[in-house]
């Protein structure tokens, strides 16, 4: 077993099989993500060297540097990192349990549900001068509720003596199309200012993230990612199809429900604070699969780091390349992800 390393401890009470290649890939991605994190923190109107950034992290640096890093840059970069992880893990889970490489939070209507909720929020709580009558702080809650409601609706409509993957996909696509239509309708009916406000949200941006966002999003996402990691063995068998999963003793309906719930929680959290950043949930797990194969023990963590890297990079490009213009990160997730994705597919076409 050269490619693998047996990991056993506490007299056999704990045992895992570690994939050496995946471990190496994971370490490399961890370093890359760390590097982008530091680089990104240093870039912007006020440039800081990576060394200066590290100094600030450890309590050094000038007052000005500390202010810029801590108040303006860190919250949004942390949100970008966590959102990327959340979307990638949610996408990976969905592709596994639905057994369809095209499954993603966007396709299943989760993001669409959040969009409708946000557009409605802006429409119903604005007065004639386009000023909001309630605090904008409630918008994340609306987005989360939208995603959660659509997840329940899709699950309920797909139910027929249990839910089958193909029914979830088809109903998800239907609901997703409906949500898009509703979003467009509400944007066209409202004033143009509101439409552009909604549009930025729908594209997905981490602009304006604050420490209070971080305080909610980070624990929320970490908890659900950890639960997802504990369920890895169940995703592994669901991916072999319902018959095999049942045959080896899996409780498929319960596991599928729980895993959908985890994905929804992850997507809900990230759309609430970063809007509808697209393509990450679809692409990151595919990239991970090219790098480490289909076993979810390796696939989920690798997806998570790829997702984090994608969104952090997209945000970095969006706020520096066209400065002082801010381009929403959602524009670039596809912009930088898709070429690499196509390259990977091309490179591994004969593998």
């Amino acid at each position, binding site marked *: 077993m050269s*490619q*693998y390393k*047996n*990991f*056993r401890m506490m007299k*056999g*009470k*704990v*045992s*895992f*099989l570690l994939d050496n290649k995946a471990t190496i890939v994971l370490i490399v991605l961890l370093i890359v993500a760390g590097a982008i994190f530091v680089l990104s923190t240093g870039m912007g109107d006020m440039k800081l060297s990576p060394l200066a950034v590290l100094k600030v992290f450890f309590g050094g640096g000038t007052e000005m540097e500390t202010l810029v890093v801590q108040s303006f840059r860190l919250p949004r970069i942390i949100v970008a990192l966590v959102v990327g992880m959340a979307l990638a893990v949610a996408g990976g889970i969905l592709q*596994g349990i639905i*057994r369809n*490489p095209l499954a993603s939070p966007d396709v299943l209507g989760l993001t669409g549900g959040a969009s409708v909720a946000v557009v409605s929020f802006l429409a119903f709580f604005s007065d004639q001068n386009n000023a909001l009558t309630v605090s904008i702080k409630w918008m994340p809650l609306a987005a989360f509720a939208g995603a959660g409601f659509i997840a329940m609706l899709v699950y309920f409509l797909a139910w027929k003596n249990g839910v089958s993957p193909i029914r979830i996909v088809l109903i998800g696509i239907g609901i997703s199309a409906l949500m898009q239509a509703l979003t467009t309708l509400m944007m066209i009916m409202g004033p143009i200012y509101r439409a552009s406000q909604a549009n930025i949200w729908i594209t997905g941006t981490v602009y304006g993230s604050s420490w209070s966002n971080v305080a909610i999003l980070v624990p929320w996402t970490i908890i659900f990612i950890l639960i997802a990691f*504990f369920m890895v*063995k169940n995703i*592994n*068998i669901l*991916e*072999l*199809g*319902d*018959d*095999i999963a*049942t*045959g*080896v*003793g*899996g*409780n498929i309906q319960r596991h599928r429900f729980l895993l959908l719930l985890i994905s929804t929680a992850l997507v809900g959290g990230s759309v609430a604070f970063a809007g509808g950043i697209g393509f990450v949930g679809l692409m990151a797990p595919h990239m991970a*699969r*090219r790098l480490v*194969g*289909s*076993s979810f*023990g390796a696939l989920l963590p690798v997806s998570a780091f790829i997702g984090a890297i994608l969104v952090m990079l997209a945000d970095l490009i969006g706020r520096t390349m066209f400065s002082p213009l801010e381009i929403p990160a959602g524009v670039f997730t596809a912009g930088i992800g898709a070429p690499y994705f196509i390259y990977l597919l091309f490179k591994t076409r004969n*593998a």
Partner: protein
Amino acid sequence: MKTAIETKNLTLSYGDSIIINELDLQIPKGEITVFIGGNGCGKSTLLRSIARLLKPKNGAVLLEGNAIAKMSTKDVAKQMSILPQSPIAPEGLTVLQLVKQGRYPYQTWLKQWTEKDEEEVTKALKATAIEDLKDRPVDSLSGGQRQRAWIAMTLAQDTDVILLDEPTTYLDMTHQIEILDLLFELNEKEQRTIVMVLHDLNLACRYADNIVAIKDRKIYAQGKPEHIISCPLVKNVFGMDCQITVDPLFGTPLCIPFGKGRCILKEVVL
């Protein structure tokens, strides 16, 4: 003869159409049982319901005397494994990663790869002669190798009863024999109970200790191939005229279908 699996008053249906009606069946322990019957006679459906993949409309399936509907699905999985018809592995999944999934019923959050797991997986890879392929993606293998990988997964489950739904479909003749030889050996060496659906009547006669012929939602006949396979049985179960002779190598029944074709005998026998 002990009974491994028993069905009591089992009725199976898809929607309103009844597939199997009030079936009482006993499957002997430690033997190879083969279900035969025409297309759509319900033999696969019966196998699926024995494997709890299909809920019966009525009646019960007993595994070693216990109703499987009342057992936890993990406990069932420790006693009985099922290989459904033409399963598909996810892209890029390696043979080892697939075979490892057979250990699912024994795994917990913290115990995911015990020494016993490793031992059983290694044994399964060895029995199916695919040790050298263990790091290859399943989707890159030939049909026969792929089927052996799936069988290895069911073997890793380490169960007394193994159910297989048409394990030789889509395989060429060499690989069909290879798979059936493998199952025969498992039965012979380890006395595992094997229940499968086969389309080829002659191979069924050669490998089965016990044949269950299904017709009109019921069992038409059950017993040793040499006791029950006859022209009237083939006529009634498959709707085909034939001559039954003796396999010159094995002595088991050999069915030669009537029909058209080139006849190069000097004297016409028919």
